[in-house]
Protein backbone atom coordinates (compact mmCIF):
# COMPACT_ATOMS: atom_id res chain seq x y z
CA UNK A 1 0.00 0.00 0.00
CA UNK A 2 1.22 3.47 -0.89
CA UNK A 3 2.20 5.39 2.24
CA UNK A 4 0.62 8.72 3.10
CA UNK A 5 4.08 10.26 3.50
CA UNK A 6 7.39 9.09 2.11
CA UNK A 7 10.72 10.85 2.45
CA UNK A 8 13.92 9.63 0.83
CA UNK A 9 17.26 10.96 2.03
CA UNK A 10 15.49 14.17 2.93
CA UNK A 11 18.00 16.83 3.94
CA UNK A 12 17.58 20.48 4.76
CA UNK A 13 20.55 22.72 5.42
CA UNK A 14 20.00 26.40 6.15
CA UNK A 15 22.57 28.72 4.61
CA UNK A 16 25.35 26.10 4.60
CA UNK A 17 25.40 26.39 8.38
CA UNK A 18 22.58 24.62 10.13
CA UNK A 19 21.51 21.06 9.37
CA UNK A 20 17.85 21.00 10.26
CA UNK A 21 16.94 17.65 8.69
CA UNK A 22 19.62 15.07 8.07
CA UNK A 23 19.16 12.28 5.53
CA UNK A 24 15.70 11.33 6.71
CA UNK A 25 13.97 8.26 5.35
CA UNK A 26 10.44 7.93 6.60
CA UNK A 27 7.27 6.12 5.61
CA UNK A 28 4.00 6.99 7.32
CA UNK A 29 1.31 4.50 6.31
CA UNK A 30 -2.22 5.69 5.61
CA UNK A 31 -4.63 5.74 8.53
CA UNK A 32 -2.01 6.02 11.28
CA UNK A 33 -1.82 8.55 14.07
CA UNK A 34 1.88 9.22 13.81
CA UNK A 35 3.74 11.09 16.50
CA UNK A 36 6.78 13.05 15.42
CA UNK A 37 8.68 13.29 18.64
CA UNK A 38 11.84 15.17 19.45
CA UNK A 39 13.37 17.86 21.61
CA UNK A 40 13.19 21.52 20.59
CA UNK A 41 15.28 22.13 17.48
CA UNK A 42 15.22 18.48 16.43
CA UNK A 43 13.79 19.37 13.01
CA UNK A 44 10.12 18.47 13.48
CA UNK A 45 8.68 21.77 12.25
CA UNK A 46 11.14 21.90 9.35
CA UNK A 47 10.00 18.42 8.31
CA UNK A 48 6.37 19.54 8.32
CA UNK A 49 7.26 22.65 6.31
CA UNK A 50 9.09 20.51 3.77
CA UNK A 51 5.99 18.34 3.45
CA UNK A 52 3.88 21.42 2.82
CA UNK A 53 6.28 22.81 0.23
CA UNK A 54 6.86 25.94 2.31
CA UNK A 55 10.55 25.05 2.24
CA UNK A 56 12.60 23.32 -0.42
CA UNK A 57 14.74 20.33 0.47
CA UNK A 58 18.49 20.76 0.05
CA UNK A 59 18.64 17.13 -1.03
CA UNK A 60 16.32 14.14 -1.20
CA UNK A 61 12.63 14.06 -1.94
CA UNK A 62 9.29 14.25 -0.14
CA UNK A 63 6.08 12.67 -1.37
CA UNK A 64 2.56 12.89 -0.02
CA UNK A 65 0.15 10.27 -1.39
CA UNK A 66 2.66 9.66 -4.18
CA UNK A 67 2.81 13.33 -5.23
CA UNK A 68 6.05 15.27 -5.05
CA UNK A 69 6.00 18.23 -2.64
CA UNK A 70 7.13 21.71 -3.66
CA UNK A 71 6.25 25.42 -3.52
CA UNK A 72 3.59 25.18 -6.24
CA UNK A 73 2.37 21.67 -5.39
CA UNK A 74 -1.23 22.75 -4.95
CA UNK A 75 -2.41 19.16 -5.37
CA UNK A 76 -0.33 18.06 -2.38
CA UNK A 77 -1.54 20.86 -0.13
CA UNK A 78 -5.16 20.13 -1.05
CA UNK A 79 -4.63 16.76 0.69
CA UNK A 80 -3.18 18.31 3.85
CA UNK A 81 -4.72 20.15 6.77
CA UNK A 82 -2.01 22.06 8.58
CA UNK A 83 -2.13 23.41 12.11
CA UNK A 84 0.94 25.49 12.98
CA UNK A 85 2.22 26.03 16.51
CA UNK A 86 0.39 28.97 18.08
CA UNK A 87 -1.43 29.83 14.86
CA UNK A 88 -1.69 33.49 13.86
CA UNK A 89 -4.86 34.86 12.31
CA UNK A 90 -6.04 38.19 10.93
CA UNK A 91 -6.96 39.93 14.19
CA UNK A 92 -9.84 41.98 12.84
CA UNK A 93 -11.68 39.11 11.19
CA UNK A 94 -14.37 36.98 12.75
CA UNK A 95 -14.14 33.17 12.79
CA UNK A 96 -16.70 32.67 10.00
CA UNK A 97 -14.94 35.20 7.76
CA UNK A 98 -11.60 33.53 8.33
CA UNK A 99 -12.88 30.01 7.74
CA UNK A 100 -14.67 31.23 4.63
CA UNK A 101 -11.35 32.61 3.36
CA UNK A 102 -9.68 29.27 4.04
CA UNK A 103 -12.55 27.48 2.27
CA UNK A 104 -12.11 29.71 -0.77
CA UNK A 105 -8.36 29.07 -0.75
CA UNK A 106 -9.23 25.37 -0.85
CA UNK A 107 -11.54 26.05 -3.84
CA UNK A 108 -14.63 24.83 -2.03
CA UNK A 109 -17.91 25.93 -3.61
CA UNK A 110 -20.29 27.95 -1.48
CA UNK A 111 -22.76 25.07 -1.12
CA UNK A 112 -20.06 22.93 0.50
CA UNK A 113 -18.20 25.67 2.33
CA UNK A 114 -20.94 27.26 4.40
CA UNK A 115 -22.49 24.14 5.96
CA UNK A 116 -19.04 22.73 6.69
CA UNK A 117 -17.94 25.92 8.43
CA UNK A 118 -21.04 25.85 10.63
CA UNK A 119 -20.47 22.20 11.48
CA UNK A 120 -16.80 22.78 12.28
CA UNK A 121 -17.48 25.79 14.49
CA UNK A 122 -19.90 23.66 16.43
CA UNK A 123 -17.44 20.75 16.63
CA UNK A 124 -14.60 22.85 17.98
CA UNK A 125 -16.86 24.68 20.41
CA UNK A 126 -16.61 28.15 18.88
CA UNK A 127 -20.25 28.56 17.99
CA UNK A 128 -20.69 31.02 20.83
CA UNK A 129 -17.75 33.12 19.68
CA UNK A 130 -18.74 33.82 16.10
CA UNK A 131 -19.48 37.48 16.88
CA UNK A 132 -16.04 38.04 18.41
CA UNK A 133 -13.06 39.27 16.47
CA UNK A 134 -10.21 36.77 16.37
CA UNK A 135 -7.88 39.33 17.97
CA UNK A 136 -9.80 38.91 21.23
CA UNK A 137 -9.43 35.10 21.26
CA UNK A 138 -7.48 33.23 23.95
CA UNK A 139 -4.72 30.77 23.02
CA UNK A 140 -7.11 27.86 23.39
CA UNK A 141 -9.71 29.49 21.14
CA UNK A 142 -7.04 30.25 18.54
CA UNK A 143 -5.96 26.61 18.57
CA UNK A 144 -9.59 25.52 18.15
CA UNK A 145 -9.97 27.90 15.23
CA UNK A 146 -6.71 26.59 13.75
CA UNK A 147 -8.04 23.06 14.10
CA UNK A 148 -11.25 24.06 12.32
CA UNK A 149 -9.22 25.77 9.57
CA UNK A 150 -7.15 22.63 9.04
CA UNK A 151 -10.35 20.61 8.63
CA UNK A 152 -12.27 22.96 6.31
CA UNK A 153 -11.24 21.12 3.15
CA UNK A 154 -11.76 17.72 4.84
CA UNK A 155 -8.24 16.57 3.89
CA UNK A 156 -7.14 12.95 4.30
CA UNK A 157 -3.84 13.98 5.96
CA UNK A 158 -3.49 16.26 8.97
CA UNK A 159 -0.17 17.80 10.00
CA UNK A 160 -0.50 19.34 13.42
CA UNK A 161 2.50 21.05 14.95
CA UNK A 162 2.45 21.20 18.76
CA UNK A 163 -1.36 21.19 18.90
CA UNK A 164 -1.47 21.27 22.70
CA UNK A 165 1.14 23.99 23.22
CA UNK A 166 -0.08 26.61 25.69
CA UNK A 167 -3.46 24.96 26.27
CA UNK A 168 -5.15 24.59 29.62
CA UNK A 169 -6.02 21.02 30.75
CA UNK A 170 -9.57 21.03 29.38
CA UNK A 171 -8.52 22.43 25.99
CA UNK A 172 -5.69 19.90 25.91
CA UNK A 173 -8.08 17.07 26.67
CA UNK A 174 -10.42 18.30 23.93
CA UNK A 175 -7.58 18.41 21.38
CA UNK A 176 -6.30 14.94 22.24
CA UNK A 177 -9.79 13.46 22.08
CA UNK A 178 -10.30 15.09 18.72
CA UNK A 179 -7.04 13.68 17.36
CA UNK A 180 -8.07 10.23 18.55
CA UNK A 181 -11.43 10.64 16.83
CA UNK A 182 -9.94 11.99 13.59
CA UNK A 183 -7.39 9.18 13.59
CA UNK A 184 -10.21 6.74 12.85
CA UNK A 185 -10.69 8.17 9.36
CA UNK A 186 -7.57 10.15 8.54
CA UNK A 187 -3.81 9.99 8.68
CA UNK A 188 -2.69 12.33 11.44
CA UNK A 189 0.88 13.47 12.06
CA UNK A 190 1.37 15.20 15.38
CA UNK A 191 4.72 16.90 15.98
CA UNK A 192 5.36 17.45 19.65
CA UNK A 193 7.84 17.15 22.47
CA UNK A 194 5.12 16.41 25.00
CA UNK A 195 5.48 12.71 25.66
CA UNK A 196 2.24 12.18 27.48
CA UNK A 197 0.33 13.43 24.40
CA UNK A 198 2.12 10.97 22.18
CA UNK A 199 1.48 8.22 24.71
CA UNK A 200 -2.25 8.85 24.66
CA UNK A 201 -2.98 9.29 20.98
CA UNK A 202 -0.33 7.79 18.72
CA UNK A 203 -0.07 4.26 17.42
CA UNK A 204 3.23 4.88 15.63
CA UNK A 205 6.02 7.31 16.33
CA UNK A 206 9.18 8.70 14.85
CA UNK A 207 11.80 10.11 17.17
CA UNK A 208 13.94 12.93 15.79
CA UNK A 209 17.20 14.10 17.28
CA UNK A 210 19.45 16.75 15.77
CA UNK A 211 17.74 16.45 12.41
CA UNK A 212 17.95 12.66 12.24
CA UNK A 213 15.16 10.14 12.57
CA UNK A 214 16.61 7.87 15.23
CA UNK A 215 13.60 5.61 15.66
CA UNK A 216 10.42 4.79 13.78
CA UNK A 217 7.97 2.12 14.76
CA UNK A 218 4.96 1.36 16.87
CA UNK A 219 4.55 2.62 20.41
CA UNK A 220 4.84 -0.94 21.70
CA UNK A 221 8.13 -1.38 19.76
CA UNK A 222 9.48 1.68 21.43
CA UNK A 223 8.43 0.64 24.92
CA UNK A 224 9.87 -2.80 24.32
CA UNK A 225 13.27 -1.24 23.82
CA UNK A 226 13.12 0.14 27.32
CA UNK A 227 14.99 -1.28 30.28
CA UNK A 228 11.98 -0.24 32.25
CA UNK A 229 10.63 -0.96 35.67
CA UNK A 230 7.24 -2.53 35.39
CA UNK A 231 5.79 -0.64 38.30
CA UNK A 232 6.80 1.40 41.26
CA UNK A 233 5.45 1.31 44.81
CA UNK A 234 5.19 4.39 46.98
CA UNK A 235 5.27 3.29 50.60
CA UNK A 236 4.88 4.77 54.05
CA UNK A 237 6.43 3.29 57.17
CA UNK A 238 9.70 3.25 59.04
CA UNK A 239 12.90 2.42 57.24
CA UNK A 240 13.43 -0.93 58.96
CA UNK A 241 10.02 -2.16 57.89
CA UNK A 242 10.57 -1.00 54.33
CA UNK A 243 13.98 -2.72 54.28
CA UNK A 244 12.37 -5.93 55.52
CA UNK A 245 9.67 -5.71 52.84
CA UNK A 246 12.41 -5.12 50.27
CA UNK A 247 14.16 -8.34 51.31
CA UNK A 248 10.91 -10.30 51.21
CA UNK A 249 10.00 -9.04 47.73
CA UNK A 250 13.51 -9.64 46.48
CA UNK A 251 13.15 -13.24 47.52
CA UNK A 252 10.12 -13.79 45.30
CA UNK A 253 10.99 -15.72 42.16
CA UNK A 254 10.45 -13.66 38.98
CA UNK A 255 10.78 -10.28 40.65
CA UNK A 256 13.73 -7.97 40.82
CA UNK A 257 13.52 -5.08 43.24
CA UNK A 258 15.51 -1.88 43.70
CA UNK A 259 15.09 1.35 45.57
CA UNK A 260 13.90 4.40 43.72
CA UNK A 261 13.31 7.77 45.34
CA UNK A 262 12.67 8.00 49.07
CA UNK A 263 10.31 5.23 50.23
CA UNK A 264 9.83 4.03 46.68
CA UNK A 265 10.47 0.53 45.42
CA UNK A 266 10.88 -0.19 41.72
CA UNK A 267 9.62 -3.62 40.75
CA UNK A 268 10.49 -5.45 37.55
CA UNK A 269 8.73 -8.59 36.44
CA UNK A 270 10.81 -11.18 34.65
CA UNK A 271 10.08 -12.09 31.03
CA UNK A 272 7.36 -14.71 30.67
CA UNK A 273 5.87 -14.17 34.12
CA UNK A 274 2.32 -12.96 34.63
CA UNK A 275 2.41 -9.28 35.46
CA UNK A 276 -0.93 -9.34 37.27
CA UNK A 277 -0.02 -12.47 39.20
CA UNK A 278 3.25 -10.99 40.33
CA UNK A 279 1.52 -7.75 41.31
CA UNK A 280 -0.98 -9.73 43.41
CA UNK A 281 1.95 -11.43 45.15
CA UNK A 282 3.57 -8.09 45.88
CA UNK A 283 0.36 -6.61 47.24
CA UNK A 284 -0.13 -9.61 49.49
CA UNK A 285 3.31 -9.18 50.99
CA UNK A 286 2.75 -5.48 51.55
CA UNK A 287 -0.56 -6.24 53.25
CA UNK A 288 1.19 -8.61 55.63
CA UNK A 289 3.91 -6.04 56.44
CA UNK A 290 3.86 -3.03 58.74
CA UNK A 291 4.16 -0.74 55.72
CA UNK A 292 1.25 1.07 54.14
CA UNK A 293 0.94 1.44 50.39
CA UNK A 294 0.46 5.03 49.14
CA UNK A 295 0.42 4.46 45.37
CA UNK A 296 1.21 1.97 42.65
CA UNK A 297 2.47 3.48 39.40
CA UNK A 298 2.52 1.14 36.50
CA UNK A 299 4.46 1.95 33.32
CA UNK A 300 3.94 5.60 34.15
CA UNK A 301 7.13 6.88 32.57
CA UNK A 302 7.64 4.16 30.03
CA UNK A 303 7.47 6.44 27.01
CA UNK A 304 9.55 9.11 28.63
CA UNK A 305 12.19 6.63 29.67
CA UNK A 306 12.23 4.98 26.26
CA UNK A 307 12.52 8.38 24.60
CA UNK A 308 15.34 9.54 26.84
CA UNK A 309 17.06 6.22 26.35
CA UNK A 310 16.86 6.65 22.58
CA UNK A 311 18.37 10.12 22.79
CA UNK A 312 21.14 8.89 25.07
CA UNK A 313 21.93 6.01 22.75
CA UNK A 314 22.02 8.35 19.78
CA UNK A 315 24.42 10.70 21.61
CA UNK A 316 26.60 7.77 22.66
CA UNK A 317 26.93 6.33 19.17
CA UNK A 318 29.26 9.09 18.02
CA UNK A 319 30.53 8.36 14.51
CA UNK A 320 28.32 5.31 14.42
CA UNK A 321 25.29 7.54 14.05
Amino acid at each position, binding site marked *: MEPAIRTEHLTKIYGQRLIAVNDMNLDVPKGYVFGLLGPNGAGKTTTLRLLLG*LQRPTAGRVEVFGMLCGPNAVGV*RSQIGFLPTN*PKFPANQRPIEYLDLVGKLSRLPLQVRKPRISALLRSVGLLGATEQRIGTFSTGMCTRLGIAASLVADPPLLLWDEPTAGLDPSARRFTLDLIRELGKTKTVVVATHILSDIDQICDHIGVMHEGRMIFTGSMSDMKRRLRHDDFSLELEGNNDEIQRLFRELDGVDGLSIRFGRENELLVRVAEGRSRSGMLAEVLKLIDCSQVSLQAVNSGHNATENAYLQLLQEDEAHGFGR
Partner: protein
Amino acid sequence: MDSGVKISKTGTRMMPYLAILRHDLGTLWKSRLVRLWLGGTALLTLLLATGNWGRFQDAPLIASLQFPYLVFPWFFVVAVLGVSPVSGSHADSLADGILSRPVSRWEYLLATWSARVVVVLSVYLVVMAPAILVITLANRPVAADSVSVYGIISVLFVVGLVQTFLVSLGFLFGTLLRRSLLAIVVLVFLWYPISFILSIFSLEQFSPVSLSRAVSTQLRQSWRQSEEEAEAAANMQDMEQFSQQMSDFFSRLSGGQPKPRTEKGDFFETKEFADFSLWRVSLGYGLPTAAAVFLAMLSFYWRDL
Protein backbone atom coordinates in the same frame (compact mmCIF):
# COMPACT_ATOMS: atom_id res chain seq x y z
CA MET B 1 -25.18 23.93 -20.08
CA ASP B 2 -21.59 23.46 -21.19
CA SER B 3 -20.77 27.11 -20.88
CA GLY B 4 -22.20 27.09 -17.37
CA VAL B 5 -19.81 24.32 -16.40
CA LYS B 6 -16.94 26.23 -18.00
CA ILE B 7 -17.70 29.38 -16.02
CA SER B 8 -17.97 27.38 -12.85
CA LYS B 9 -14.58 25.73 -13.50
CA THR B 10 -12.94 29.09 -14.18
CA GLY B 11 -14.57 30.49 -11.09
CA THR B 12 -13.25 27.62 -9.01
CA ARG B 13 -9.78 28.04 -10.47
CA MET B 14 -9.81 31.77 -9.76
CA MET B 15 -11.28 31.36 -6.27
CA PRO B 16 -8.02 31.54 -4.25
CA TYR B 17 -6.79 34.54 -6.27
CA LEU B 18 -10.05 36.42 -5.77
CA ALA B 19 -10.20 35.44 -2.09
CA ILE B 20 -6.70 36.75 -1.38
CA LEU B 21 -7.35 39.88 -3.46
CA ARG B 22 -10.52 40.62 -1.54
CA HIS B 23 -8.90 39.85 1.80
CA ASP B 24 -5.92 42.08 1.05
CA LEU B 25 -8.11 44.90 -0.23
CA GLY B 26 -10.07 44.79 3.01
CA THR B 27 -6.91 44.70 5.12
CA LEU B 28 -5.30 47.54 3.18
CA TRP B 29 -8.40 49.67 3.27
CA LYS B 30 -8.57 49.28 7.06
CA SER B 31 -4.87 50.09 7.49
CA ARG B 32 -3.86 53.41 9.01
CA LEU B 33 -1.28 54.00 6.31
CA VAL B 34 -3.83 53.97 3.49
CA ARG B 35 -6.33 56.07 5.41
CA LEU B 36 -3.72 58.63 6.37
CA TRP B 37 -2.48 58.70 2.81
CA LEU B 38 -5.97 59.26 1.48
CA GLY B 39 -6.50 62.12 3.92
CA GLY B 40 -3.05 63.55 3.24
CA THR B 41 -3.33 63.42 -0.53
CA ALA B 42 -6.80 64.97 -0.47
CA LEU B 43 -5.54 67.78 1.75
CA LEU B 44 -2.44 68.42 -0.34
CA THR B 45 -4.46 68.42 -3.56
CA LEU B 46 -6.86 70.92 -2.03
CA LEU B 47 -3.99 73.15 -0.86
CA LEU B 48 -2.24 73.07 -4.24
CA ALA B 49 -5.45 73.68 -6.18
CA THR B 50 -6.69 76.53 -4.01
CA GLY B 51 -3.20 78.07 -3.72
CA ASN B 52 -2.86 78.29 -7.51
CA TRP B 53 -6.54 78.72 -8.30
CA GLY B 54 -6.29 82.19 -9.78
CA ARG B 55 -2.72 81.92 -11.06
CA PHE B 56 -2.37 78.94 -13.38
CA GLN B 57 -4.27 77.82 -16.43
CA ASP B 58 -5.94 74.39 -16.37
CA ALA B 59 -3.00 72.38 -17.72
CA PRO B 60 -0.28 73.72 -15.37
CA LEU B 61 -2.65 73.54 -12.42
CA ILE B 62 -3.52 69.90 -13.11
CA ALA B 63 0.17 69.20 -13.71
CA SER B 64 1.03 70.67 -10.31
CA LEU B 65 -1.34 68.18 -8.71
CA GLN B 66 0.55 65.25 -10.31
CA PHE B 67 3.92 66.23 -8.89
CA PRO B 68 3.39 64.71 -5.42
CA TYR B 69 2.52 61.37 -7.04
CA LEU B 70 5.40 61.37 -9.48
CA VAL B 71 8.21 62.73 -7.34
CA PHE B 72 7.54 63.54 -3.72
CA PRO B 73 6.16 62.68 -1.13
CA TRP B 74 3.74 59.93 -2.18
CA PHE B 75 6.47 57.81 -3.70
CA PHE B 76 7.37 56.80 -0.17
CA VAL B 77 3.86 55.66 0.75
CA VAL B 78 3.43 53.73 -2.49
CA ALA B 79 6.79 52.02 -1.98
CA VAL B 80 5.93 51.04 1.61
CA LEU B 81 2.63 49.57 0.44
CA GLY B 82 4.48 47.51 -2.14
CA VAL B 83 7.16 46.27 0.23
CA SER B 84 5.02 44.96 3.08
CA PRO B 85 3.22 41.78 1.88
CA VAL B 86 6.14 39.38 1.58
CA SER B 87 8.67 40.73 4.03
CA GLY B 88 9.28 40.95 7.75
CA SER B 89 7.01 39.27 10.27
CA HIS B 90 4.22 39.21 7.69
CA ALA B 91 6.03 36.38 5.90
CA ASP B 92 5.57 33.93 8.79
CA SER B 93 1.87 34.48 9.18
CA LEU B 94 1.26 34.32 5.45
CA ALA B 95 3.12 31.01 5.29
CA ASP B 96 1.02 29.54 8.09
CA GLY B 97 -2.27 31.10 7.11
CA ILE B 98 -2.33 31.15 3.32
CA LEU B 99 0.55 29.36 1.66
CA SER B 100 0.00 26.17 3.66
CA ARG B 101 -3.35 25.92 1.84
CA PRO B 102 -3.81 24.73 -1.75
CA VAL B 103 -2.56 28.03 -3.17
CA SER B 104 0.39 28.39 -5.49
CA ARG B 105 2.94 31.06 -4.74
CA TRP B 106 2.33 32.91 -7.98
CA GLU B 107 -1.40 33.05 -7.21
CA TYR B 108 -0.63 34.59 -3.84
CA LEU B 109 1.88 37.10 -5.22
CA LEU B 110 -0.32 38.13 -8.11
CA ALA B 111 -3.29 38.64 -5.80
CA THR B 112 -1.38 40.72 -3.23
CA TRP B 113 0.29 42.74 -5.99
CA SER B 114 -3.09 43.38 -7.65
CA ALA B 115 -4.60 44.44 -4.32
CA ARG B 116 -1.84 47.01 -3.78
CA VAL B 117 -2.10 48.34 -7.31
CA VAL B 118 -5.88 48.64 -6.98
CA VAL B 119 -5.57 50.49 -3.65
CA VAL B 120 -2.90 52.87 -4.92
CA LEU B 121 -4.77 53.66 -8.14
CA SER B 122 -8.07 54.00 -6.29
CA VAL B 123 -6.66 56.51 -3.83
CA TYR B 124 -5.08 58.43 -6.71
CA LEU B 125 -8.24 58.47 -8.83
CA VAL B 126 -10.62 59.13 -5.94
CA VAL B 127 -8.74 62.35 -5.24
CA MET B 128 -7.59 63.30 -8.72
CA ALA B 129 -10.71 62.67 -10.81
CA PRO B 130 -12.93 65.13 -8.88
CA ALA B 131 -10.07 67.65 -8.63
CA ILE B 132 -9.53 67.62 -12.43
CA LEU B 133 -13.26 67.81 -13.02
CA VAL B 134 -13.59 70.86 -10.80
CA ILE B 135 -10.54 72.57 -12.34
CA THR B 136 -11.68 72.05 -15.93
CA LEU B 137 -15.33 72.94 -15.36
CA ALA B 138 -14.93 75.83 -12.95
CA ASN B 139 -15.05 79.39 -14.16
CA ARG B 140 -11.65 80.59 -12.92
CA PRO B 141 -10.07 84.07 -13.28
CA VAL B 142 -7.41 82.81 -15.74
CA ALA B 143 -7.18 82.55 -19.53
CA ALA B 144 -9.06 79.61 -21.06
CA ASP B 145 -6.96 76.50 -21.72
CA SER B 146 -7.22 73.76 -24.33
CA VAL B 147 -7.07 70.69 -22.03
CA SER B 148 -8.50 67.67 -23.85
CA VAL B 149 -10.28 64.59 -22.51
CA TYR B 150 -7.64 62.47 -24.23
CA GLY B 151 -4.92 64.51 -22.53
CA ILE B 152 -6.49 64.02 -19.10
CA ILE B 153 -6.96 60.28 -19.62
CA SER B 154 -3.41 59.83 -20.91
CA VAL B 155 -1.95 61.78 -17.97
CA LEU B 156 -3.99 59.75 -15.48
CA PHE B 157 -2.77 56.64 -17.27
CA VAL B 158 0.90 57.68 -17.17
CA VAL B 159 0.84 58.70 -13.50
CA GLY B 160 -1.07 55.51 -12.68
CA LEU B 161 1.54 53.53 -14.57
CA VAL B 162 4.40 55.18 -12.67
CA GLN B 163 2.68 54.32 -9.39
CA THR B 164 2.10 50.75 -10.52
CA PHE B 165 5.81 50.59 -11.33
CA LEU B 166 6.66 51.91 -7.86
CA VAL B 167 4.42 49.32 -6.19
CA SER B 168 6.07 46.61 -8.27
CA LEU B 169 9.55 47.90 -7.45
CA GLY B 170 8.65 47.89 -3.74
CA PHE B 171 7.27 44.40 -4.20
CA LEU B 172 10.50 43.21 -5.81
CA PHE B 173 12.73 44.70 -3.14
CA GLY B 174 10.50 43.43 -0.36
CA THR B 175 10.80 39.92 -1.79
CA LEU B 176 14.53 40.11 -2.45
CA LEU B 177 15.62 41.77 0.77
CA ARG B 178 13.01 40.26 3.15
CA ARG B 179 13.37 43.09 5.67
CA SER B 180 10.82 45.84 5.08
CA LEU B 181 12.96 48.64 6.47
CA LEU B 182 16.00 47.65 4.45
CA ALA B 183 13.89 47.37 1.29
CA ILE B 184 12.45 50.87 1.83
CA VAL B 185 15.88 52.41 2.48
CA VAL B 186 17.30 50.80 -0.68
CA LEU B 187 14.29 52.00 -2.70
CA VAL B 188 14.66 55.56 -1.46
CA PHE B 189 18.35 55.60 -2.32
CA LEU B 190 17.60 54.11 -5.73
CA TRP B 191 14.57 56.19 -6.67
CA TYR B 192 15.65 59.70 -5.79
CA PRO B 193 18.77 59.79 -7.98
CA ILE B 194 16.80 58.06 -10.79
CA SER B 195 16.72 61.24 -12.95
CA PHE B 196 20.50 61.48 -12.77
CA ILE B 197 20.93 57.78 -13.54
CA LEU B 198 18.53 57.96 -16.49
CA SER B 199 20.23 61.06 -17.87
CA ILE B 200 23.52 59.13 -18.01
CA PHE B 201 21.84 56.74 -20.43
CA SER B 202 20.03 59.54 -22.31
CA LEU B 203 16.72 58.27 -20.97
CA GLU B 204 15.84 61.43 -19.14
CA GLN B 205 12.37 61.57 -20.66
CA PHE B 206 11.44 58.57 -18.50
CA SER B 207 12.43 60.22 -15.24
CA PRO B 208 9.53 61.20 -12.97
CA VAL B 209 10.69 64.82 -12.97
CA SER B 210 10.68 64.94 -16.79
CA LEU B 211 7.28 63.30 -16.85
CA SER B 212 5.85 65.82 -14.47
CA ARG B 213 7.25 68.58 -16.67
CA ALA B 214 5.63 67.02 -19.72
CA VAL B 215 2.20 66.72 -18.12
CA SER B 216 1.04 70.23 -19.12
CA THR B 217 1.85 69.57 -22.76
CA GLN B 218 0.25 66.15 -22.72
CA LEU B 219 -2.94 67.54 -21.18
CA ARG B 220 -3.39 69.72 -24.27
CA GLN B 221 -2.89 66.84 -26.68
CA SER B 222 -5.84 65.82 -28.77
CA TRP B 223 -6.47 62.25 -29.85
CA ARG B 224 -5.19 62.80 -33.42
CA GLN B 225 -2.36 65.15 -32.63
CA SER B 226 1.05 63.81 -33.68
CA GLU B 227 4.18 63.97 -31.56
CA GLU B 228 5.57 66.76 -33.76
CA GLU B 229 2.46 68.81 -33.16
CA ALA B 230 2.77 68.16 -29.49
CA GLU B 231 6.26 69.59 -29.53
CA ALA B 232 5.00 72.67 -31.28
CA ALA B 233 2.23 73.07 -28.74
CA ALA B 234 4.65 73.42 -25.89
CA ASN B 235 5.26 76.92 -24.73
CA MET B 236 7.60 78.72 -22.45
CA GLN B 237 4.81 79.79 -20.17
CA ASP B 238 4.28 76.20 -19.10
CA MET B 239 7.93 75.80 -18.27
CA GLU B 240 8.05 78.88 -16.14
CA GLN B 241 4.84 77.96 -14.42
CA PHE B 242 6.09 74.50 -13.77
CA SER B 243 9.28 75.75 -12.17
CA GLN B 244 7.23 78.05 -10.05
CA GLN B 245 4.97 75.18 -9.02
CA MET B 246 7.89 73.15 -7.77
CA SER B 247 9.31 76.06 -5.87
CA ASP B 248 5.93 76.87 -4.37
CA PHE B 249 5.31 73.26 -3.54
CA PHE B 250 8.48 72.83 -1.51
CA SER B 251 8.06 76.24 0.10
CA ARG B 252 4.58 75.27 1.21
CA LEU B 253 5.79 71.98 2.57
CA SER B 254 8.52 73.68 4.57
CA GLY B 255 6.10 76.35 5.75
CA GLY B 256 8.14 79.23 4.22
CA GLN B 257 7.40 81.86 1.57
CA PRO B 258 7.80 80.97 -2.13
CA LYS B 259 11.36 81.75 -3.27
CA PRO B 260 11.99 84.37 -5.96
CA ARG B 261 12.35 82.67 -9.36
CA THR B 262 15.81 81.97 -10.72
CA GLU B 263 16.48 81.72 -14.41
CA LYS B 264 15.57 78.54 -16.21
CA GLY B 265 17.90 75.52 -16.42
CA ASP B 266 19.23 73.95 -19.59
CA PHE B 267 16.57 71.23 -19.63
CA PHE B 268 13.90 73.84 -20.08
CA GLU B 269 15.80 75.68 -22.77
CA THR B 270 16.16 72.58 -24.92
CA LYS B 271 12.42 71.93 -24.74
CA GLU B 272 13.21 68.28 -24.10
CA PHE B 273 10.25 68.09 -21.75
CA ALA B 274 8.02 68.15 -24.81
CA ASP B 275 9.62 65.03 -26.22
CA PHE B 276 6.89 62.90 -24.71
CA SER B 277 5.62 59.79 -26.38
CA LEU B 278 2.81 57.96 -24.63
CA TRP B 279 3.81 54.77 -26.37
CA ARG B 280 7.46 55.00 -25.30
CA VAL B 281 6.57 55.98 -21.73
CA SER B 282 4.08 53.12 -21.53
CA LEU B 283 6.77 50.72 -22.65
CA GLY B 284 9.41 52.44 -20.53
CA TYR B 285 7.38 51.88 -17.36
CA GLY B 286 5.26 48.91 -18.42
CA LEU B 287 8.14 46.60 -19.25
CA PRO B 288 10.08 47.25 -16.02
CA THR B 289 6.82 46.78 -14.10
CA ALA B 290 6.28 43.40 -15.70
CA ALA B 291 9.94 42.55 -15.15
CA ALA B 292 9.75 43.55 -11.46
CA VAL B 293 6.66 41.39 -10.89
CA PHE B 294 8.23 38.49 -12.74
CA LEU B 295 11.50 38.75 -10.79
CA ALA B 296 9.56 39.04 -7.51
CA MET B 297 7.70 35.85 -8.38
CA LEU B 298 10.90 34.08 -9.33
CA SER B 299 12.59 35.16 -6.13
CA PHE B 300 9.56 34.21 -4.04
CA TYR B 301 9.33 30.82 -5.71
CA TRP B 302 12.86 29.93 -4.60
CA ARG B 303 12.44 31.30 -1.14
CA ASP B 304 11.96 29.27 2.05
CA LEU B 305 9.13 30.34 4.31
